[in-house]
């Protein structure tokens, strides 16, 4: 079965009671037992819910895993993964990661005595030098956020396995349409399902998929114990979003490439960070690792300072000024003040998240309309 067909059919059984082509939304918080202490398939919605279960089944199939778990947000999913760690242990994470993950690792996990080292994972030699005897986890994003750096997942997974580390990939940017980390040897995939999986800026969610059933059971145990689960309503909307996931991601990737090419030749634009451009340092690897597209996220630097970038993000019309990404509506933002404001300023500058950096999430609008919008905004700087 092809990807799109799976997205439509796996996890979307015809309702056995009514014949409904679309599974009902089970809003029940609790389920009746026939016998005390002997629940049937479901007992309490935190522990399991049919509507959430359908989404989990679909996303597991799309990522090529055996177990999917749906969370209230991407951060709830990421947090669940970090709860596999114990006090005294150490994580290596990429330098080009979501600001919220940076915050989780540095400000929250640290409270439990877990330490973190950030490493530029585009060069795997940097992993070796960050390794400690107590290192237990490697956390990766590719393309990275917000610099679109590309990490070789197969090589990273091999290295991590050799050192007994669990590997986690936040696959939010690439989506399983373009990259399936589990097939490359990664242990855990996490998503902000709020982004491409939902795809319509109208739900919050997180997803996690693993290819090892035992690991899946440990993570499920933590999820059930800590309770950050996705609601049935959001699960329904997320499942509905998955049905057009491939169409959206491929179309948005095509548009992003056009926007990137336009920006790359613009005299008032500095560097353009998009793995689809031949001069991007990760271009060759991305071409190999990503299937038929480079994603719909890109960043660029405008000539000027923080104020110029601020003016630009405030003056586009189709690109709306907002955090988040991955939806049908195009968004624009300034990482230094928005998505990556939770980085310490020194780290931000060290890792290349400059004040004049602007990040775009390319939506479903026609690329000519988007380019016209940027042209007008840049010309007004």
């Amino acid at each position, binding site marked *: 079965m092809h990807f799109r067909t799976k997205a*439509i059919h796996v996890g979307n059984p015809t309702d056995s009671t009514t014949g409904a082509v679309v599974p009902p939304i089970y809003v029940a918080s609790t389920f009746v037992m026939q016998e005390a202490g002997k629940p049937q398939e479901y007992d309490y919605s935190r522990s399991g819910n049919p509507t959430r279960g359908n989404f989990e089944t679909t996303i597991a199939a799309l990522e090529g895993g055996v177990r999917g778990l749906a969370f209230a947000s991407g951060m709830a999913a990421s947090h669940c993964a970090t709860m596999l760690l114990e006090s005294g242990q150490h994580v290596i994470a990429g330098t080009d990661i979501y600001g919220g993950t940076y915050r989780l690792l540095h400000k929250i996990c640290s409270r439990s005595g877990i330490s973190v080292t950030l490493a530029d994972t585009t060069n795997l030699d940097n992993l070796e030098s960050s390794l400690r005897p107590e290192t237990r986890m490697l956390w990766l994003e590719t393309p990275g956020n917000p610099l679109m750096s590309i990490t070789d997942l197969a090589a990273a997974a091999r290295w991590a396995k050799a050192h007994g580390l669990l590997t986690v990939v936040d696959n939010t940017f690439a989506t399983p349409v373009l990259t399936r980390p589990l097939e490359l040897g990664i242990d855990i995939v996490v998503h902000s399902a709020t982004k491409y999986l939902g795809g319509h800026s109208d739900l919050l969610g997180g997803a996690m998929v693993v290819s090892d059933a035992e690991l899946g059971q440990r993570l499920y145990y933590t999820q059930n114990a800590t309770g950050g689960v996705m609601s049935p309503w959001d699960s329904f909307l997320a499942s509905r979003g998955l049905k057009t996931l491939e169409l959206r991601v491929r179309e948005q990737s095509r548009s992003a490439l056009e926007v990137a090419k336009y920006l790359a030749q613009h005299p008032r634009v500095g560097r353009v960070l998009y793995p689809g451009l031949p001069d991007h340092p990760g271009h060759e690897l991305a071409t190999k690792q990503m299937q038929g597209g480079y994603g719909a996220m890109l960043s660029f630097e405008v000539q000027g300072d923080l104020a110029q970038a601020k003016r630009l993000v405030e003056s586009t019309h189709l690109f709306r000024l907002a955090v988040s990404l991955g939806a049908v*509506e195009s968004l624009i933002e300034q990482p230094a003040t928005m998505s990556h404001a939770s980085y310490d300023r020194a780290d931000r500058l060290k890792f290349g998240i400059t004040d004049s950096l602007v990040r775009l999430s390319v*939506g*479903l609008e026609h690329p000519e309309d988007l380019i016209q919008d940027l042209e007008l905004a840049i010309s007004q700087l």
Partner: protein
Amino acid sequence: MSQPNEKTGHELNGNGSRWTGFSTTAVHGGEDRQKAHDALTDAIVCASTFSFENTQSVIDFIEQDQQRGEYGRYGNPSDMVVERKLAAIEGAEDGILFSSGMAALVTLLMAKLSAGDEIVFFDQCYHRSREFCAKYLARYGVITKQVKTGDYAAMANAVTDKTKMLVSESPTNPHLSVIDLEKFVEIGRRFKVETLIDATLATPYNLRPIAAGVDYVLHSATKYLGGHNDLLAGVVLGCRAKLEDVRSLRGVLGGVNSPHNCYLLQRGLKTFELRMQRHNENGQRVAEFLAGHPAVAKVLYPGLPDHPDHQLAVRTMRGFGGLVTFFVKDPDWQAAARVVDGCRMARIGPSLGGVETLIEQPYVMSYFKYSPADRARFGIPDNMIRLACGVENAEDIIADLDQALRG
């Protein structure tokens, strides 16, 4: 509710659009640019009623004909935004949303027809539309005349000084005949009779009836517009002045849609172009596959060169949709039933236009209680199968059909 103006972003609407892309209109068209609480997406306004600040504001509302919520049956922000979006996509001045396609048709016809009036239909049409006219409108003294689909001379001959409306589907269901809108509209203009096209199967992506001069366009928005088999909706589109009495009658008869459904429809419309591109591609590829299959006697699909309206379809449509009608060689109804039952991916069900592929045998699904003579009259042979291609990969739909046809 704010009045449409420059600030709210309604310049994205309809013909005055600054944007060129179909999807750009589908994503942004009709929506307020700045929404309450600065939310990027529209809120679902569930309120059944809307409050007034004081007595004077009620009087102002009545005297100044203000555009604001009063009571849900007269309109609601969640349905009004979808009406504006659908109008923008259709290139129409206005649109009215209903709880189903049938509610849209019924309200439109009841608003426009009175006892003694006549309407003329092309005879290939959705059986419930036919039933409403023959069984119900007739009770109110409205006469329905049916002429052979595509016989424009017969349609012109059927017009009398009592005729109020000419009606057709295009493409028709399930025969997929394509109507020459130029000829259809010309008859209407010649006799000063209004025209209605049910373009559910075509959608505004594939056919532009308003540009061709049709007065009213009707869709079952349950199908391609909603696109996910998870809502019911209908819409009538046209110029505002002609729709005023329809809107007013909707407020009386009450076939309005729920705010929750309206939101799902609005959400579905955002991927409308992408879905239609895949429906068109899948319909064409599946039709070509079936046309070459030894177990298949005939395929009806406007995109096939041997379809009687192929040239017209190529000239007037962007694509031909996901619906494919075909006939298995064995004339016995049970042979076709075995093909339907043999499908593993395609599910047996009425409706069409959603992401999931659906299959049905019109004789069983819609005409089981009709006599053989009536079925022959309506052109529903026992071995006819109607396949509504979803947006799955074409290879998977074809493989499914192939194994079902092999038995």
